[in-house]
């Protein structure tokens, strides 16, 4: 590790911490329909969307909210599937790429609908420009906006003054979706995309460029509208790359500045949403406590990954090779180990899944951190919106366990956490172990599961585990050696993504509805304080222990065993 490496990590974190409040306040104004500086210049667009969409904007019950969200997701999934299947007859296809194969098209449609953006395909060899723009980048916007909407709905449920009714209202899905898109995602993306282009990220609709190389060979250079997709891919924590190599590709991430901006965009909205939550709770400390817990988990993860990668690969021991710059297999020279480790941590803390290095080639512990980050539920800043509602569910569970210890019925922000909420929170918590472990177990003994591995032994198990973890966590990054474009993986991973998204969102919205109606008790000396360091420690403890207890056996046979094998100099 170098001092410069740490300076980059801390500089990055400082930038996120600085922007949390201003953007958080802005998001609060936008989502709650208060006055803000973009209401004037862009208000017409919001109103136009409502008129065209037929949105009246009345308060919805959680059922109506969830119903709208599910119907919308179903339609958009279908449209993306159709665009891929019909891309050979649609415009913006200068390479004349054929229709995407059905299994892959389903997998990809599920992937982008669920904000996973897992790439089972090779972008530059499969997707026409129309599929990229209208099929995929479109989903980058709406799945992110839906995430913000759902997080806001849960925050409303927690912070609204209830009237004591059994179920309360939680806002309007269409309004939330539109506001997040029109005022936050679109304007920011337009600016960032142009900034990216200025740094060398491509943005064109030209056919692939064929060049004669210096040594006289032929090189076909893939082209496309990359920057516009890249901006929303990072800002919306989508992570689905234009190219197969994702943000490692020089056209998708040309230099250190675009790399920094990419990471910054991934954490920008999730970090700010904690502050938005604090504003909604009328107690900024509530937001900062979440931010604090996330920050600690992030810094520890980044530190461990950086340390593991900077140490280099033990496989080189005994060879006349020097690796002062760390384990460079699967990493780009311009980013080096520090930025690759940081990027890997950021992209898996959040549910982004963009990669600027190949996690599959990380050292065992370096690869363990991204994997475990996702298994924690992507609550370390997390996906846009998904991170906030994820950590809030963890907070509800923490409050329930710890709240009992202070001798009161547990309450969060004054709202009692009772059987209904615990039931829903446990439904949420069950999805990860059920989907990830069951599918991984299946694939790890089935011939069609094993044949897709790129590596043997424990690392091969890690590849399968990572695939299902990433899919269920809606992350999208991969131990990319796995050949996931097979009927089994396309189907199983597609299902895992859908379960990981909707089986979790529906309980979240139900919790929002259940809490929204509840009256809030004012905080007193006898109530568990949820805005201080003690709660931060508690929240981290519960999150880590729940994740570790669930996945320790699987992790032990994957990266942990591999670590000791690597230390012993074994190769498989």
């Amino acid at each position: 590790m170098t001092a410069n490496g740490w300076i980059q990590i801390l500089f990055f974190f400082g930038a996120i911490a600085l922007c949390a409040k201003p953007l958080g306040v802005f998001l609060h104004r936008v989502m709650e329909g208060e006055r803000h500086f973009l209401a004037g210049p862009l208000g017409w667009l919001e109103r136009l969307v409502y008129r065209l969409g037929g949105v009246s904007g009345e308060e919805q019950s959680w059922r109506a909210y969830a119903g709208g969200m599910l119907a919308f997701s179903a339609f958009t999934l279908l449209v993306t599937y159709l665009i891929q299947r019909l891309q050979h007859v649609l415009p913006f296809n200068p390479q004349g790429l054929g229709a995407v194969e059905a299994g892959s098209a389903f997998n990809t449609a599920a992937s982008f609908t669920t904000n996973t953006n897992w790439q089972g395909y090779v972008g530059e060899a499969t997707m026409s420009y129309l599929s990229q723009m209208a099929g995929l980048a479109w989903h980058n916007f709406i799945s992110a906006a839906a995430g913000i909407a759902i997080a806001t709905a849960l925050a409303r449920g927690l912070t609204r003054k209830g009237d004591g009714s059994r179920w309360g209202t939680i806002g309007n899905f269409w309004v939330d979706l539109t506001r997040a898109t029109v005022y936050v995602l679109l304007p920011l993306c337009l600016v960032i995309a142009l900034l990216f282009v200025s740094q060398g990220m491509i943005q064109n609709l030209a056919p692939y460029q064929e060049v004669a190389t210096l040594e006289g060979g032929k090189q076909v250079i893939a082209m496309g509208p990359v920057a516009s997709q890249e901006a929303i891919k990072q800002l919306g924590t989508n992570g689905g790359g234009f190219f197969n190599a994702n943000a490692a590709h020089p056209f998708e991430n040309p230099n250190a500045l675009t790399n920094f901006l990419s990471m910054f965009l991934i954490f920008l909205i999730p970090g700010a949403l904690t502050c938005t939550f604090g504003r909604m709770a009328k107690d900024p400390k509530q937001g900062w406590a979440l931010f604090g817990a996330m920050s600690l988990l992030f810094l520890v993860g980044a530190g461990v990954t950086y340390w593991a990668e900077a140490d280099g690969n033990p496989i080189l021991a005994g060879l006349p090779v020097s690796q002062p710059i760390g384990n460079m297999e699967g990493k780009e020279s311009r980013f080096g180990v520090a930025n690759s480790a940081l990027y890997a941590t950021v992209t898996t803390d959040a549910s982004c899944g963009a990669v600027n290095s190949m996690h599959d080639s990380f050292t065992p512990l370096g690869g363990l951190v991204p994997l475990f980050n996702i298994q924690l539920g992507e609550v370390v800043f997390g996906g846009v919106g998904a991170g906030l509602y994820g950590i809030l569910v963890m907070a509800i569970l923490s409050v329930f366990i710890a709240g009992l210890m202070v001798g009161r019925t547990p309450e969060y922000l004054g709202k009692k956490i009772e059987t209904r909420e615990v039931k829903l929170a446990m439904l949420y918590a069950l999805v990860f172990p059920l989907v990830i472990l069951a599918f991984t177990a299946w694939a790890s003994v089935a011939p069609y599961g094993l044949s897709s591995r790129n590596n043997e032994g424990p690392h091969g198990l890690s590849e399968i585990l990572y695939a299902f973890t990433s899919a269920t966590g809606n992350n999208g990054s991969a131990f990319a050696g796995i050949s996931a474009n097979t009927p089994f993986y396309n189907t199983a991973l597609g299902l895992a993504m859908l379960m990981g998204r909707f089986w979790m969102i529906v309980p979240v919205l139900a919790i929002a509805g259940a809490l929204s109606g509840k009256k809030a008790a004012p905080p007193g000396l006898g109530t568990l304080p949820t805005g201080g360091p003690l709660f931060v420690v508690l929240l981290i403890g519960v999150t880590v222990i729940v994740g570790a207890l669930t996945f320790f056996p699987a992790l032990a046979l994957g990266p942990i065993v591999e670590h000791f094998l690597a230390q012993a100099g074994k190769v498989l």
Partner: protein
Amino acid sequence: MSEIKIALRMTIVTLVLTGLVYPLATTALAQVMFPRGAGGSLVHGGDGRVVGSELIGQPFASPRYFQPRPSAAGSGYDASASSGSNLGPTSKKLRDRIVADVERLRKENPQAAGPIPSDLVTASASGLDPHLSPAAALWQVPRVAAARGASADEVRGLVESRIEPRFLGFLGEPTVNVLLLNLDLDRRFGRRMAAD
């Protein structure tokens, strides 16, 4: 209006707004404001032909050129099939590949000083890495100088002038762009040697 109907209409509205209007508007603006970057930062050779992109690595096998890192993109530096090797840290395949590369590099660079910098034997993430670490470029200087019949100092000078420092002095890593460096070589020493 029922939620289903709204969902259908909103599907179309958002598709047009964010899936078409936004990327096409960005493309138009980018083409006007930053045509070079938007078009792929293409590089022209001495004869004015496009020889590649500044950002996309190319294969170089000749001892007269600086050689880039191993590539797992297609059959190597296939710019329409970006990919890393995705070999794990305990992979025998990886170890074998590295051992083979080490042997080859040793043979090709008999005068090279010190151990081989690791980026010369590790595949990049994209398979299109246009860069080398300064150490990896400098390590190849004796071979390139010998092949070009030039002095090592002269070649080293070229390399050093091509070292791109960290952005703002701390972001990223110092690098050497292999294609641009090799273009410099051709420019200084001629594209083809008489002996060829």
